């Protein structure tokens, strides 16, 4: 049993140490894996705001992940082919600048989250799960047949987008970007959780009637959480697309939504570090179990079942059971 703060520092420090060690040992692929962990963690930190703090079981977060990915893909595609992007009323040039792409990815994901949230949050429980799933599927099928941007084939971006002052093609530098963003998102999550908004949102999850009777609207709290959550997952999507230099409809697939939930549960719901632990485990399992047997997903399934049935706090819950209260 270790304290939560200790656990958080160990996991985050560990991720950084692995990447640095890989740099020293000249194992660039390990850095790539660590980057993948950081990005998947970021996506799950986003989901954790809705799911962990808000209790909103979104089975459609792939929608925002994919929108972020396509924001990157479309902007970079237009920059790469020197064609303007026609928005009907006016045209804009594409861009290969990461900060601009991130901003666009977050704004578009937030907008999508607002629209989906307005519809889905009128309901709760199973309806919410199924409706979010269905909307993500809608994006999936749409991009599948969206031939202007490659349809099922997706879009390849030949050179990773740029960040002022850095060479993003060097694995450790791109890892650095993702790692810093992940840390920023974790810090934001931490602040949110303890801020007035977090208290109200958490109360809306546990006792919505109470929140109403003190004069607050649970629906609005959830909507804001959902939008924030979507924006962060969208940012992760843009980074993920940049990691792969590729975007395709599979980013919208419902397996993606499921995997994001899996990351959180593996690590521990509503735990700050839960998504990171989950992402580390998932990538390690995927990579090493996948190398051992073609049927590795059976074992992934079995491990998930065991965690749901017997270790309901996830790994964070096993390592550092949550003490409650404050002061």
């Amino acid at each position, binding site marked *: 049993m270790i304290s939560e703060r200790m656990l958080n520092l160990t996991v985050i420090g560990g991720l950084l140490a692995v990447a640095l060690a890989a740099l020293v040992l000249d194992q660039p692929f390990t850095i790539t894996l660590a980057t993948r962990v950081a990005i998947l963690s970021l996506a799950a930190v986003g989901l954790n705001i809705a799911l962990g703090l808000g209790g909103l079981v979104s089975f459609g977060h792939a929608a925002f992940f994919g929108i972020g990915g396509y924001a990157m893909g479309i902007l970079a595609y237009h920059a790469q082919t020197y064609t303007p992007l026609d928005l009907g009323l006016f045209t804009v040039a594409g861009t290969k600048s990461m900060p601009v792409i991130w901003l666009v990815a977050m704004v578009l994901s937030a907008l999508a989250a607002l629209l989906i949230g307005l519809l889905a949050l009128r309901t709760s429980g199973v309806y919410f799960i199924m409706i979010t799933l269905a909307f993500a599927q809608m994006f999936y099928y749409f991009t599948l047949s969206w031939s202007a941007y490659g349809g099922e084939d997706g879009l390849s971006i030949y050179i990773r987008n740029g960040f002022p002052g850095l060479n993003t093609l060097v694995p450790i530098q791109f890892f650095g970007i993702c790692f810093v963003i992940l840390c920023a998102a974790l810090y934001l999550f931490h602040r949110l959780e303890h801020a007035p908004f977090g208290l*109200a949102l958490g109360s809306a999850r*546990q006792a919505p009637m109470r929140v109403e009777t003190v004069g607050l609207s649970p629906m609005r709290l959830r909507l804001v959480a959902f939008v924030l959550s979507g924006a962060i997952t969208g940012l992760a999507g843009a980074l993920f697309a940049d990691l792969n230099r590729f975007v395709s409809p599979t980013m919208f697939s419902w397996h993606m939504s499921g995997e994001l939930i899996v990351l959180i549960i593996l690590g521990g719901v509503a735990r700050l570090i839960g998504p990171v632990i989950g992402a580390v485990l998932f990538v390690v399992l995927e990579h090493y179990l996948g190398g051992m047997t073609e049927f590795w997903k059976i074992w992934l399934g079995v491990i998930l079942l065991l965690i749901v049935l017997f270790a309901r706090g996830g790994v964070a819950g096993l390592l550092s059971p949550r003490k409650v209260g404050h002061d």
Partner: protein
Amino acid sequence: MTEPILETRGLTKSFGALVAGDDISIDLRKGEIHAIIGPNGAGKSTLIQMICGGLKPDAGQVRLMGRDVTGDSTASRARAGLGRTFQISALAMENSVLQNAMLGAMGALDHPWRFWRPVLARSDLRDRAEACLDRAGLLELRSRRVADLSHGERRQLELAVALTLQPRAFVMDEPMAGLGAGGSARMTEVLDALRAEAPILLVEHDMDAVFALADRISVLVYGRVIATGSVGEIRANAAVREAYLGEDA
């Protein structure tokens, strides 16, 4: 006579064939405790829900300080000054006692759209919350998780959260339920003092408490108010004795 703080006019609600509220008109005046009694299934919960905004009446009005709030949400009624406690505690069980009280303070004093500074560092909210916890006798337990509280302590916390709102009128759903004899007596004392601040619409099964506290009593049977009056009048009312007290006795 001054304007009633809280008033219902002809509230009616039915669920299919079941009439849960039939032309209910009651009022709550400054400084009083108005108790609603009635056998199980008489429509007391339905009435509370209609007053607080959880259920839409088929017909009739709810007025708060002279204003029609029938179409308003629960939240806006709360902001207009309606404080409510629940029969089955509706508290954030994983949070601490203080956090629950501070939620009320936030609702009363501020808005939730603050995303950065820790809520516990907000001394204004904290002062209000701690003062109310103190009045409800819970200040010592403020760091305790609600899930670890006893049943009676949760009832106290229900009250404390309602206090943080400094409402113009209270609606309390069985605040004595499940309290032991000692707990009931203490709660009776608190409510007795509270009516000076804001009147209380009290739904309660504990007849001793009702007779000790109420200025007026309304008796609800099959969704209808069959009598309203002082404790003495109700005790003497034949219809009430037949419909309600008779069965109980």
